[in-house]
């Protein structure tokens, strides 16, 4: 048996007993788990370590990258031409809308000014590319190629050409993690486009989503489009999110089970748009008193002047 190796057996310095070491490392791991899960105190350590790991990750990504490049190079001229034609047709089809967009925006602004409403926030964003899905099998996250260096912040919404796909949840120097809408911990406030009914959409695992806490008699139909309601202060209102695919109304349950599927290519990789951080509208004052009589109000205003 050559278990001990070929060096002379170490009689004296063996360190602590294995059980003692096991106890030490296990308690250290559990302490880390609790610190990360309960108190979220390890983000800075993670940021530093991830920066050090970045070259290794980049090196591991190289073969996949090269393979994709090769695949792109070998894709036939024919397909590229077809793609080009399709895109040109699509551009022509949407040109009508695009040309009138500026005009409509201005008109909308004027009308909103007339109605004395707050102006809509302009949507700005930057294009990023989804590199790969995170290896963690327990959550649905993807890694994007823009990070702290590009000014991405945690909390920003990520959309593709069809609708919302998720939200930036962790930012590293070169990359950032996007939690997809189908993740079990991800929720998004939505409204039914047809009738403005509000609700909360959450991931249900295995690529599906569920509209939670809908009363059994709520006016939701299969095929309804759900859009962001904008009440959360994070997502801009009106972005398409999901489509209702089936409703199960059970009298024994207080809520209906509304199954949805995402509109956007949530589980596909490609180019995405990271929407700029939205400035949340001011919340109304909590203790609004009954309006004072007008004369008194005028007096007090005069006094402050």
């Amino acid at each position, binding site marked *: *048996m050559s278990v001990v*190796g070929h060096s002379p057996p170490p009689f004296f310095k063996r360190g602590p007993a294995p059980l003692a070491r096991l106890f030490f490392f296990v308690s250290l791991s559990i*302490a880390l788990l609790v610190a990360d899960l309960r108190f979220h105190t390890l983000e800075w350590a*993670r940021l530093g370590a991830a920066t050090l790991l970045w070259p290794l990750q980049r090196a*591991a990504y190289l073969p996949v990258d090269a393979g994709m490049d090769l695949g792109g190079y070998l894709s036939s001229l024919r397909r590229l031409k077809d793609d080009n034609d399709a895109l040109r047709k699509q551009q022509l089809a949407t040109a009508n809308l695009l040309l009138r967009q500026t005009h409509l925006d201005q008109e909308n602004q004027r009308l909103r000014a007339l109605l004395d409403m707050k102006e809509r926030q302009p949507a700005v964003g930057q294009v990023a590319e989804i590199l790969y899905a995170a290896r*963690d099998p327990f959550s649905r996250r993807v890694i994007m190629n823009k990070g702290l260096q590009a000014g991405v912040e945690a909390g920003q919404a990520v959309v593709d050409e069809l609708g919302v796909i998720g939200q930036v949840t962790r930012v590293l120097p070169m990359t950032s993690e996007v939690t997809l809408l189908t993740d*079990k911990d991800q929720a998004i406030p939505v409204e039914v486009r047809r009738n403005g009914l509000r609700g909360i959409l959450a991931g249900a695992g295995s690529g599906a989503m569920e509209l939670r806490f809908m009363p059994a008699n709520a006016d939701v139909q299969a095929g309804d489009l759900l859009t962001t309601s904008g009440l959360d202060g994070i997502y801009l209102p009106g972005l398409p999110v999901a489509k209702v695919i089936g409703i199960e109304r059970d009298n024994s349950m207080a809520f209906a089970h509304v199954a949805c599927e995402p509109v956007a290519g949530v589980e596909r990789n490609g180019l995405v748009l990271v929407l700029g951080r939205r400035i949340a509208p001011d919340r109304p004052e909590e203790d609004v008193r009954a309006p004072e009589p007008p004369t008194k109000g005028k007096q007090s205003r005069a006094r402050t002047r």
Partner: protein
Amino acid sequence: MQPTHSSRRILLPVKGWFILLTLVGATLANLVPLGRLPLLPDWVALTLTFWCIREPLRVSMGTAFVLGLIMDIADASIMGQHALAYVLLAFTAGQLSRRILWFPLFEQALHVFPMLLGTQLIMLIVRLIAGAEFPGLSWFIGSLVGAALWHPVTYLLLLPQYQPVERDDNRPI
């Protein structure tokens, strides 16, 4: 002497840098972003088990803990999830190393399979307590593939120790 895999064969001493190189290589293999292919084994766990069985005095729980932290950060999972599982794996492998090395390679793989499966189960329990979704039974195929790869992995990782004592310049390996 013919290269045999029985533990009775006298091997050259292992070099420290080779252990480090294989562990870094396994980490790199784990980092290759292939998405959620369920067939891929956890290379780090496999290599770690191998060295914990072969060299229990050099590679044990400390190495496992550091590797676990690296995988936690690279995988974007909870800090301590891999670390806890790998430390327990290294402890089990170290305790069983004297027993396992008596067996031929196929029966060694039968020992390694429950260890790899246990590592996955610990991670599963930790994440389910934290409220994650169940990844599906296909995720556990990874440890089956890992155990099936025990034979080639053993051969590969022991290759530098098979060199004869008298150096023969005409020998290819």
